[in-house]
C-alpha cells in the first residue's frame, strides 16, 4: 500500500463537490470562531458538533470536523496577537511576540504572517500526510491484535509521561477514563459491569459526554469563576507584512514545519508542546535572540507554523493506525467510529475514497482559511469582543444539545454535567485531562485487542513480548514511563498542571 495519484485525484473530485466544499467552508468558519473565542477549544468544539452531524454523509461530516480542527489552529492566534489572550494553549508563544508587535502598531503584519505561516506549514505537512499516511498504513497491515494492544498502550503511556511532573496523576487520570468506559455492558460478553443495578448505566457512558464535560463545561466554569469579561480591541492597520518580513520568516516557517510535523506524529505531542519547541528553536538559532519577546516577527511565524504542522501530522497515526495522538484526535476518532468507520490500515483499503477525500479537502481548507484569515482578520478579532457572560450560556446550551443528540437520552446530559465537575476539580487539583479522554476513547479497542491477543496465545501474556513489532511498542511504552519518572524525580517541586482543550 502506498501513495497513488489516482486516489488523490479521486479524493479531490469528491472534495470539490459543492456539498463538501460547503461543509469544509462551514467547518473552517466554525473552527476559526472556536479558535478566536477563548472560552472554547477545538476538542469541545468538535465534540459538541459531532452528534449534530448525523444527518450528513460520513465524508462530509469528517471533512467538516477536520476543518473545525485546523480552523481552530488558524484562529487561535488572532486574540493572542491583538489582545494578548491566547484562544488555545498552543497560541501562548505567539502572544509573546505577537502582542509586542501589536503594541508597536504592527498587529496587521503579525496577523498576516501568522496566517501565511499557518498556510505554508499546513500545506507542506499535508504533503507529509499524503505520502506518509499510506506508507504507515501499509506497515500497519502487518499488525495483529497484540501489536494493536501494544500500540495503544504505548500511545497512552506517552500521553501520561508527557503529563510532565504529574506522572502519578496522569496514571490516575487514565484509570478514571478507563473506569468511565468500562461502565455498562461488556462489548464482548454482554455482561453488565459496574452498573450497580442502574438501567441507565447499562447503556454505558458515552465518551462524547465525558469529553464535552471535562473540556467545555469545566472551561466555562473556570471562565465564569474568573469573571472573564469583554475584550477591548484596538484598530488593526497595515495588514500586509513587508517582503523583508516574509524573507526573514521563511526559514522559521520551514523549520517549524519540520519540528511540528515530526513531533506531531508522536502521541502526546500536542500543538501546545510543539509550538514552544519551535519558538525555542528559533530563539536559539537566531543571530539576535534578544529580539524575541520584544516583537520579533519570527517569534510569531515559528509557533504558528508548528501549530498547523502538528495538527496535520496528528492525522497520520489517526488514519494509518487508528491511534489518536491528542484529545482533539480522540474526538475525531470517536466521530469516525460513530459512522462505523474503523481507522487503521483497513480504512485505506476498504474506504479509500473517504480517506483521500478528507485529505484532499484539507488542501482546499487550508486555502479557504488563508482567504478567510487574511482579509477578514479584523472581523475575527471583533468577534472575540463577544462578552463571556453572553458566550458562556451559549456554550453550555450547545453542550447540552450536543450530548443529548447522541442517543437522545437525558442521562448523557447528566453524565456530561458530572464530568464537567470532575474536569473542573481535576484542573484545580493539577490532574492532567488528556489521559482521561484518550483512555475513555481507546478503552473498548484496548480491551477487544487484548482479548483477541490472549485468544491467539491461549491466555499467555508473553505474546506481547515474543512478536517483534509488539515488543518494540512495549519497550517504547516502558521507556516513556521511565522517562516520565525521571522527569518527575529530577524536579521535586510541586507544580500544578496547566492544561487546556487541545
Amino acid at each position, binding site marked *: 500500500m502506498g501513495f497513488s495519484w489516482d486516489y488523490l485525484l479521486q479524493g479531490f473530485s469528491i472534495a470539490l463537490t459543492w456539498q463538501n466544499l460547503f461543509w469544509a467552508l462551514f467547518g473552517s468558519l466554525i473552527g476559526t470562531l472556536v479558535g478566536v473565542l477563548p472560552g472554547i477549544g477545538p476538542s469541545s468544539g468538535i465534540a459538541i458538533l459531532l452528534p449534530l452531524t448525523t444527518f450528513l454523509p460520513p465524508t462530509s461530516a469528517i471533512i467538516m470536523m477536520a476543518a473545525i480542527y485546523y480552523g481552530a489552529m488558524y484562529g487561535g492566534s488572532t486574540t493572542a496577537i491583538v489582545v494578548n489572550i491566547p484562544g488555545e494553549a498552543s497560541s501562548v508563544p505567539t502572544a509573546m511576540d505577537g502582542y509586542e508587535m501589536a503594541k508597536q502598531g504592527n498587529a496587521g503584519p503579525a496577523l498576516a504572517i501568522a496566517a501565511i505561516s499557518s498556510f505554508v506549514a499546513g500545506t507542506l505537512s499535508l504533503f507529509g500526510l499524503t505520502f506518509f499516511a499510506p506508507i504507515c498504513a501499509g506497515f500497519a497491515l502487518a499488525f495483529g491484535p497484540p501489536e494493536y494492544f501494544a500500540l495503544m498502550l504505548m500511545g497512552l503511556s506517552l500521553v501520561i509521561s508527557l503529563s510532565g511532573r504529574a506522572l502519578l496523576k496522569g496514571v*490516575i487520570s487514565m*484509570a478514571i477514563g478507563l473506569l468511565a468506559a468500562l461502565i455498562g455492558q461488556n462489548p464482548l*460478553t454482554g455482561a453488565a*459491569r*459496574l452498573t450497580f443495578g442502574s438501567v441507565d448505566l447499562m447503556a454505558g457512558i458515552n465518551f462524547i459526554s465525558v469529553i464535552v464535560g471535562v473540556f467545555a463545561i469545566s472551561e466555562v466554569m473556570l471562565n465564569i469563576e474568573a469573571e472573564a469579561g469583554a475584550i477591548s480591541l484596538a484598530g488593526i492597520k497595515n495588514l500586509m507584512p513587508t517582503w523583508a518580513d516574509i524573507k526573514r520568516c521563511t526559514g522559521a516557517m520551514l523549520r517549524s514545519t519540520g519540528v511540528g510535523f515530526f513531533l506531531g506524529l508522536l502521541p502526546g505531542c500536542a500543538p501546545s508542546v510543539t509550538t514552544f519547541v519551535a519558538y525555542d528553536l528559533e530563539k536559539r538559532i537566531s543571530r539576535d535572540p534578544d529580539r524575541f519577546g520584544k516583537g520579533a516577527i519570527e517569534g510569531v511565524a515559528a509557533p504558528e507554523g508548528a501549530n498547523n504542522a502538528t495538527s496535520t501530522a496528528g492525522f497520520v497515526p489517526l488514519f494509518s493506525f487508528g491511534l489518536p495522538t491528542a484529545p482533539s484526535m480522540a474526538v475525531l476518532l470517536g466521530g469516525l467510529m460513530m459512522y462505523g468507520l474503523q481507522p487503521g490500515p483497513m480504512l485505506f483499503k476498504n474506504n479509500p475514497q473517504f480517506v483521500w477525500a478528507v485529505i484532499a479537502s484539507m488542501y482546499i481548507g487550508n486555502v479557504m482559511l488563508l482567504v478567510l484569515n487574511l482579509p477578514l482578520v479584523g472581523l475575527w478579532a471583533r468577534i472575540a469582543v463577544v462578552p463571556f*457572560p*453572553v458566550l458562556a450560556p451559549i456554550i453550555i446550551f450547545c453542550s447540552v444539545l450536543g450530548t443529548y443528540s447522541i442517543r437522545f437520552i437525558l442521562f448523557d446530559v447528566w453524565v456530561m454535567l458530572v464530568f464537567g465537575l470532575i474536569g473542573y476539580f481535576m484542573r484545580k487539583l493539577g490532574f492532567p485531562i488528556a489521559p482521561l479522554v484518550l483512555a475513555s476513547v481507546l478503552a473498548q479497542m484496548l480491551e477487544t485487542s487484548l*482479548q483477541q491477543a490472549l485468544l491467539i496465545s491461549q491466555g499467555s501474556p508473553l505474546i506481547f513480548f515474543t512478536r517483534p513489532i509488539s515488543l518494540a511498542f512495549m519497550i517504547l511504552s516502558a521507556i516513556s514511563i521511565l522517562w516520565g519518572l525521571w522527569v518527575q524525580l529530577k524536579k521535586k517541586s510541586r*507544580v*500544578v498542571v496547566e492544561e487546556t482543550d487541545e
Partner: protein
Amino acid sequence: MQVIVKTQRKADIVSGCFLVVLGILVLIAASQIRGGMEERLPPRTLPYIVGATILAGGAFLALKSWRFAGKDVPLKWPDRGAMIRLTVILLAVVVFVLVMTPLGFHLSSGLYIAFSIWYLKRSAVWTALIAGLITGALSYYVFGQVLELSLPMGTVFFND
C-alpha cells in the same frame, strides 16, 4: 472546602483518600460482575485492574503528599462571589435539564439562555431577552424542523 484544602499538598492528600475509597468501591463492584470465567479475558479482569490502579494511585498520592516536606503551592479556589456565580449557573443548567421534558427543549433553552445572560451581565437585560428568544426560535426551526432531531416537545403542551 477552602479551609481543608488550601494548598496543593492538602488537596493531594484529600483527593488521594477519595481515590482510595473510589478504588475500593470499584473493586467491590468488580467482584460482583457475573460470568465469563471461561473467557481468556473475563469481564471482571479490567475493572479489577482499574480499581486496583485507582486505589494504589490514590494511596500513593496521599502518602507521598503526607510525607512531602518541600515548598507547598497554594491553590486558587473561587472567592465567595465567584462561588455564588458558579453555583447559580450550574443550578440553572440543572433546572434547564429538569424542565426540558415538561416544558420542551426549545422553550426551556430560551428561558435558560435569557436567565443566565441576565444573571451574568445584569446590565444586558435586552440582550438576554433577545438572545433567549433567538435561541428558542433557532432551536425550534433549525434543530427541530430542519434537522428533525427528536428533542422533547414538552409534556405540558403535547401529551405524547
